[in-house]
């Protein structure tokens, strides 16, 4: 590629960036968006909100049975009581794993996801293979994530929508009876709250 006169112009960015710049400047001119608010929004989802929030919710449910009951009955209220509220958190259902039932969450049509507790979804959650196979072959998907379940465990697949999003309450690992909620939260991975994995085992977490 020739770069003659490179100091006399700036190489335009890829088309997709120009499209975003076009949209952004037009919308700002129309008074429909505010640049400062855009930056706050981006910072929120890039840096502030993430699966650590959900892990705190799970750890509290593990250590406080009244909270667990509340969470299963009215997840949005129980979650916002911990300070995790806002977009995509208005309608959340928490589904509980038990020894006979494992829950797995997907959004088959796009990428609906409980932002206040998990942040924005990982790339695989948005991919066609996951969206299709979580429903068609959940056990196979779990195997790919290294999650093996007993043959008689039922797998419930929950398809998220704009109206309802799901968070999995994983099973509390054994041998953690004396653990604080703060320590327990470390065992709760993002994937455990989507349901592709279980909560980490205490030994593994301690070795980390």
């Amino acid at each position: 590629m020739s770069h003659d006169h490179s100091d006399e112009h700036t190489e335009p960015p890829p088309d997709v960036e120009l499209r975003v710049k076009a949209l952004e400047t037009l919308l700002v001119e129309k008074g429909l968006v505010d640049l400062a608010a855009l930056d706050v929004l981006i910072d929120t989802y890039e840096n502030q909100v993430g699966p650590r929030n959900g892990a705190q919710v799970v750890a509290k449910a593990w250590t406080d049975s009244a909270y667990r009951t509340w969470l299963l009955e009215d997840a949005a209220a129980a979650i916002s009581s911990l300070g995790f509220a806002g977009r995509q958190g208005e309608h959340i259902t928490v589904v509980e794993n038990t020894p006979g039932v494992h829950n797995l969450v997907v959004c088959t049509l796009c990428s609906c996801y409980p932002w206040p507790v998990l942040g924005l979804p990982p790339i695989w959650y948005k991919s066609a293979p996951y969206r299709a196979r979580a429903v068609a072959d959940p056990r196979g998907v779990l195997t790919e994530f290294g999650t093996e379940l007993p043959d008689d465990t039922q797998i419930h697949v929950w398809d998220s929508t704009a109206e309802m999003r799901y968070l999995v309450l994983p099973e509390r690992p054994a041998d953690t009876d004396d653990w604080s909620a703060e320590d327990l939260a470390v065992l709760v991975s993002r994937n455990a709250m989507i349901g592709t994995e279980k909560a980490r085992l205490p030994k593994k977490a301690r070795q980390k």
Partner: protein
Amino acid sequence: MTQTDPLIPIPSGEIPATPVFRAPWEAYAFALAVQLSEQGIFDWPEWTQALAAEIRDAGEDDHGSQYYHYWLTALEKLLTKQGIISEEVLQERKTAWREAYLRTPHGKPVEL
């Protein structure tokens, strides 16, 4: 039920932690849609329908890496459909930005 090729692996995103946005434009495309829905330009179910339509058209080769491309296309289409911004105006503004880059000496801020 959708049949998919079992050989297509589900991309793993856990380790190392993948960035939320892979480029600033993805972040701005994301934030624009969220802010517009909060302004009531469209509601979230309308938005997810628009996004789902783009994703559906992409078919089964979609491994998630093109996600914000679909997001941006869905946003452009929804705004044109609602008469907020016409396709022509969008195109003109894009061209104006490209020309702004081309006439701006390297290292200087690019302005329309």
